[in-house]
């Protein structure tokens, strides 16, 4: 956007075209940026496996967050509102992660097997986190440790899954 007009050597048609090209490139960039974080269609099982690994990582992060929050609450280090908030976020993250992953079409049979394996971890994780959220909202602090009992094992399995398919 300078004050100086275009190069004198250009024919009148060129600058317009150049401007249009520039606009197209800009628009393309904008779209790319906007979609940079989104999930696209998956064509190869390698890509599917890496998406599965990332999903396991994200679910593991939610499980570990909940686990840490419950530990802190049990030790009297977290007040109930902070706990409820943290657990609600963890539960909703786990649900989102699972929904996003389930929406991806597995490209082949092998990927379908992988999906089954991961789903067997995601479903109990999401449901345990939902249970925790409900217990925390009701102020049922005493019940939390028992509801949270399966979390460490789930977290470990999710981590193993992530490392195996990275």
């Amino acid at each position, binding site marked *: 956007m300078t004050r100086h007009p275009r190069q004198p050597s250009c024919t009148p048609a060129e600058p317009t075209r150049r401007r249009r090209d520039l606009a197209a490139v800009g628009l393309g960039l904008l779209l790319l940026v906007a979609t940079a974080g989104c999930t696209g269609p998956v064509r190869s099982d390698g890509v599917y496996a890496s998406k599965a690994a990332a999903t396991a990582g994200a679910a593991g992060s939610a499980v570990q967050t909940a686990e840490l929050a419950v530990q802190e609450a049990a030790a009297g280090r*977290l007040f109930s509102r902070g706990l409820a908030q943290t657990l609600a976020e963890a539960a909703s993250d786990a649900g989102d992660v699972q929904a996003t992953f389930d929406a991806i079409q597995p490209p082949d049979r092998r990927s379908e097997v992988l999906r089954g394996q991961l789903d067997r971890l995601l479903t109990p994780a999401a449901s345990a986190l939902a249970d925790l959220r409900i217990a925390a909202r009701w102020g049922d602090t005493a019940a939390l440790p028992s509801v949270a009992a399966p979390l460490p094992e789930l977290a470990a399995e999710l981590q193993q899954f992530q490392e195996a398919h990275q």
Partner: protein
Amino acid sequence: MRKLLEIALGVLTAIGGFVDIGDLVASTETGARFGLGLAWVLVVGVLGIILYAEMAGRVASVSGRAVFDLVRERLGAGVGLLNLAASFFITLLTLAAEIGGVALSLQLATSVNYLLFVPIVGFLVWLVCWRVRFEVMDNAVGLLGLALVVVAVAVWRAHPDWGAMWHSATHPVVPGTESHTAYWYFAIALLGSAMTPYEVFFFSSGAVEQRWTRSDLVVNRLNVYIGFPLGGLLALALMVAAALVLEPRGIDPSHLSQAALPTSLVLGKLGLALALLGFFACTSGAALETALSCGYSVAQYLGWPWGKFLKPVQAPRFQLVVLASITLGAGLLLTTLDPVKLTEYAIVLSAAALPLTYLPLLIVANDPAYLGDKVNSRLSNAIASAYLAVLVVASVATIPLMIVSKAGGG
């Protein structure tokens, strides 16, 4: 004695005012994902903002001119307008992110959905911009922001293995679970969060608001040379806390609540309360700074009267821009855009726009027509040039890295 107190107050304000939602998010996230592998970027970023904020303060003190005023003079109307559009857009995104940060801190303390707080926070931010004296506003939020020191205390009380931490900070490696593109993407985000352009808009305009003159050059240096590094230490503490507590558990934080978990783990409820107070104060402070910066940049580009030292009727167009920016920022949040995601985009775009602000500033800081004998020394020019080169590289690399690393995602 009174002068000394004033200086001490200024430095304390600079410490508390250094951290904003960008630092909270970037430091916690990089600490949790890369341990201390990106701590060096924080050091680079803090040194950079020290270097350029000092210049901005010096230019403002000696010539009475704020940064955007000079951007227009140096870059001309066309390039200056492009710069204004980019800077305003990024500052507006940051403003929205800060309002979101305030609302999220309140949600953590009350369990009430943050969206309900957004209009209230927006209104209060406007009210302070409208009514409260600059010095009172600046000092109050800065001092409250000092509550964040609790994060550093938590790190201390966690008795970490300092030797191992030093080693991992000085021998950075990319963790096996992360890609190199994600590493560099977050390096740029961290740089953007430390050197956010609004910081120099606000710092230089603030110097004009407080009518700094040549005699305040010492105050400027003390604020910058002591206040900023200590503020940077708070950002580092957030990163270390995340590296100690979140990284080993594989937690990739995506909520403000997770940034507080390490502090409550070590220090319990009181620590948590102080951390939340710190989050609240530093995001509120930054919300005010970004709201005013929106007004400053537009008014300075167009040569309108601006500033809180004027009655609102004396600077109505400035006040109108501030009001409109807050409304737009709050409106953006009410679309239920995730404030943490918004913050990530704001700091990365800040990084891309850094040369736009820092190049004209560096040129003016060498112009005796503005600074007389107070132009840059050879040493600061040498360092500033090296920084500018780094900023240009980072700026060019930002968008490609964003695309390749899928915005830092897995």
